[in-house]
């Protein structure tokens, strides 16, 4: 292993080693010093974040092209580390309250994040598969960490069974692509394609299977059926992380693999993406309207947002818009991450010990009983809707802009109309909190409120100066794409 190799996966290595040490420390001291594990987990993530910030501006290929460091991987690494820190903060309050005192929570979270980071910098299909497993298996366990509750166990099992099937799809797809190109290296495949040495048919089959597998991870319709149940059953702090991390990792794989390897067959794939995106937006938003449970509503809303991101990616075959298409997806992921983590943190604050309190009607009166929490929730709902002066607006603006630039005006109009549908259910939350009398209970967990407030301030504040984040996203290039 050379120094370049080591540097390239520094954020990942740090996390993995750190998590292993934590596992031991938790066994030895975890009972006596309960604060030790969460604090160490945050410290580990901060170190990893520092390592990934240190990489900014670098471009490298390591481990014989298995690992790529570029703007894309760095942007996502930061995103994963930051949402991990938020998830730990949320988990700390929440786990204590619902009586899950498992140090594994933090360790598993770290393992999962290391898998996500690896996914962001994958340069080879084998790495893609490895990191998919590395990020998923801890999540299966985390979904069931509240093992005293049936719902949590059910969520874990469902996620596991369907997740494994998705992994099988990915693996099968990789096999096809290998059969077509004779290599699993993403850059090797690109080269083989440009030299015309691939079997078109096998490549299309492989890409379709990969799309199905990744579509499961990002919760795109029709691969979304697990989402509401898993989001609903898992402990809220886990779902908060899952809704951001797993989705971003899925998109990381999708974007990297497709924009590198499958641009040559984009003509065949574009209609597929078009339909997938439109379906996801329509089903996600329309079904969300019918939900009465906040967790399930947010689950369907996360499906809908996957549809929006896919919309940017429909035009990936067009070299002129590819950079914008990647950058707008990254920007939207960041905006979505802040908003979604925020909305879930409010949910964490209102959820009761017995797992109740997450019906939308339970929020009635929150505007009076917990004004700052409710105000933060308004910000998140507006940002999800895409109302100006929230980051969500710029996210949608950039996405729709990219879709129209790519010539997919009808798709953009479909997206705009579905976001009109979304206004209805997002506003219902606001209506409940402010316009209807009630005695919503909110826990006075300081950390959770603090996180919600900080995220709300970021969502509004960054909307005034989105240029910085735009530039970061625009620097999120995939080398060679």
């Amino acid at each position, binding site marked *: 292993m050379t120094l370049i190799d080591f540097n390239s996966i520094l954020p990942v290595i740090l996390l993995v080693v750190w998590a292993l040490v934590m596992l031991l420390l938790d066994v030895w001291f975890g009972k006596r010093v309960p604060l030790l594990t969460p604090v160490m987990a945050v410290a580990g993530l901060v170190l990893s974040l520092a390592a990934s910030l240190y990489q900014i501006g670098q471009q490298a290929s390591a481990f014989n092209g298995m690992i790529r460091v570029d703007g894309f991987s760095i942007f996502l690494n930061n995103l994963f580390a930051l949402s991990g820190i938020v998830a730990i903060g949320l988990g700390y309050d929440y786990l204590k309250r619902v009586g899950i005192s498992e140090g594994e929570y933090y360790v598993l979270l770290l393992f999962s994040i290391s898998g996500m980071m690896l996914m962001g910098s994958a340069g080879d299909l084998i790495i893609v598969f490895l990191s998919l497993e590395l990020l998923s298996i801890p999540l299966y366990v985390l979904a069931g960490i509240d093992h005293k509750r049936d719902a949590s166990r059910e969520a874990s099992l469902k996620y596991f069974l369907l997740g494994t099937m998705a992994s099988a799809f990915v693996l099968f797809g990789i096999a096809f692509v290998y059969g077509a190109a004779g290599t699993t290296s993403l850059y090797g495949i690109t080269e083989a394609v440009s030299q015309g040495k691939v079997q078109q048919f096998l490549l299309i089959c492989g890409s379709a299977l990969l799309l199905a597998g990744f579509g499961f991870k990002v919760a795109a319709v029709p691969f979304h059926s697990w989402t509401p149940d898993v989001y609903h059953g898992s402990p809220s702090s886990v779902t908060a992380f899952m809704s951001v991390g797993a989705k971003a990792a899925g998109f990381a794989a999708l974007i990297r693999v497709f924009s590198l390897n499958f641009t040559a067959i984009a003509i065949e794939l574009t209609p597929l993406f078009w339909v997938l995106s439109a379906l996801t937006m329509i089903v996600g938003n329309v079904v969300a309207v019918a939900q009465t449970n906040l967790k399930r509503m947010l689950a369907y809303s996360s499906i809908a947002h996957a549809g929006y991101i896919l919309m940017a990616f429909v035009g990936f075959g067009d070299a002129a818009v590819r950079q914008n298409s990647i950058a707008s997806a990254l920007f939207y992921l960041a905006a979505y991450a802040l908003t979604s983590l925020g909305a879930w943190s409010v949910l964490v604050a209102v959820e009761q010990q017995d797992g109740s309190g997450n019906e939308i009607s339970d929020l009635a009166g929150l505007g009076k009983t917990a004004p700052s929490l409710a105000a933060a929730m308004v910000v998140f709902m507006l940002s999800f809707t895409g109302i100006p002066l929230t980051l969500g607006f710029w996210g949608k603006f950039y996405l*729709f*802009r990219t879709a*129209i630039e790519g010539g997919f005006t009808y798709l953009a*109009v479909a997206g705009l109309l579905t976001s009109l549908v979304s206004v*209805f259910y997002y506003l219902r939350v*606001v*209506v409940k909190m*402010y316009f209807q009398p009630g005695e919503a209970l909110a826990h006075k967990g300081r950390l959770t409120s603090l996180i919600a407030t900080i995220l709300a301030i970021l969502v509004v504040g960054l909307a005034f100066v989105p240029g910085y984040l*735009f530039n970061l996203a*625009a620097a999120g290039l995939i080398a060679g794409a």
Partner: protein
Amino acid sequence: MNSAINPLLLVTFFPLVGVLLILLLGSTGKNTARWIALLTSLVTFALSLWLLMQFDSTKGGIQMEINLPWLTLGGNTVGFHLGVDGISILMVLLTALLTPIAILSTWKAVEERVSGFMSFFLLLETGMMGVFLSLDMVLFYIFWEFTLVPMYFLIGLWGSQRRVYAAVKFVLYTMAGSLLMLAGILWVGLTYGGFDLTKLTDSAIPFTAQLWLFGAFGLAFAIKVPMWPLHSWLPDAHTEAPTAGSVILAGVLLKMGAYGFLRFNLPLFPQATLTLAPWMAGLAVIGILYGAIVAFRQKDVKRLVAYSSISHLGFVVLGTFALTAQGVQGAILQMVNHGLSTGALFLIVGMLYERRHTRLMADFGGLWRVTPLLGSLTLVTVLSSVGLPGLNGFVGEFTILMGAFHSTILASPWFAVVATLGVILAAVYLLHMFQQVFLGPVRHPENEKLADLSPREVILLAPLLLLAFWIGLYPAPFFRLMSPAVEQLLALIQTVVQTAH
């Protein structure tokens, strides 16, 4: 005069100073928040007068422009671009005038969460100013959509019984239009290389695209105005909103739609405008008659005034799409007139409601004897809304009708002729309302002891009615202010007419 501080920036963002102060000091008491809000909005009004003084009414085109790059996005720059011309300055003045009046009107009416109410109101003022002054399409859209948020809360939190329904309906209707407008903005911006409005007017957009874009932008504006048949959100929103909300909704927010037509549809899509003008005028005429007839059937005074808005705004749209100097000038003046007289009418409805906690005409009757001052001021307001010569409504409507009558683009005097029926109907339903509420014997004993207007309430109505007389008797300064901008706009349309022939 210090040129370092742009008056436009001050007018737009000064209300935010008030919001900040309320957030810092609001907990000290309801009156603190009220006074901060009132003083902030009065200073904003003073600033808008200062803006008027610096405005050179002999020149057309944009003045006091401020253009800063805000962000770049995939090669397109979004600019922080503000500017004022003869059309927008009147809207700015109207906004700055109506906001303090609306705030003063809530002195007794809003007792709950006063600091919240006042903060939303000042935020709304900033949003409205931004809409009228933006010259960048994205910036315009941001302000346009942003006005939804405070208005949603104003209706939803401080409205009457069916407020939640009305608030959600208001947002959904507006968003339905504006989301398509966003698609239009993006398409124009991407195809013609920028979102800057001043640079886009020269770009020759092909005719078919113009038709589509006219539809995308026009739908957003038509919903806001509202034009028949997209009006159904308005009676609900007006009826359920608190008095101050209704005043601003009728006085300013509806004008954003009419202003949008003038600022976007006419200069950017002139060919489509020419083709569609008779259709738009036709819808406007239907709206005029429909609003008037439905208003006549109302039992609730506030709903009646709401439907009268649909009728009156129909005149504005008719004048706009007459595409003659008279028509457009009349439309702009009528926008101001409607803000004054309907604003005053909503204030009066609010005063009646505060006294009796009902808005049904059947619950009143004979109030003239009990409250003569309220009665006489209401009569003046009603007559101004009806369009009695010597008052503002007459000048606006007459100019519009003349413009529509002679319009070569509408090419038929029938639009004006049928619309004139609307003027007659307005007299019918408004005087009917006046008679029901103020004339005849006192039918209900509760009404015997109603208090007449307090000095605060007289102060509310006085500036509106004084302006109504001023515009009615000597409208020349107002026309002078807008005529260079209108001429410029119509010259642009005229070149298209000539190239078409």
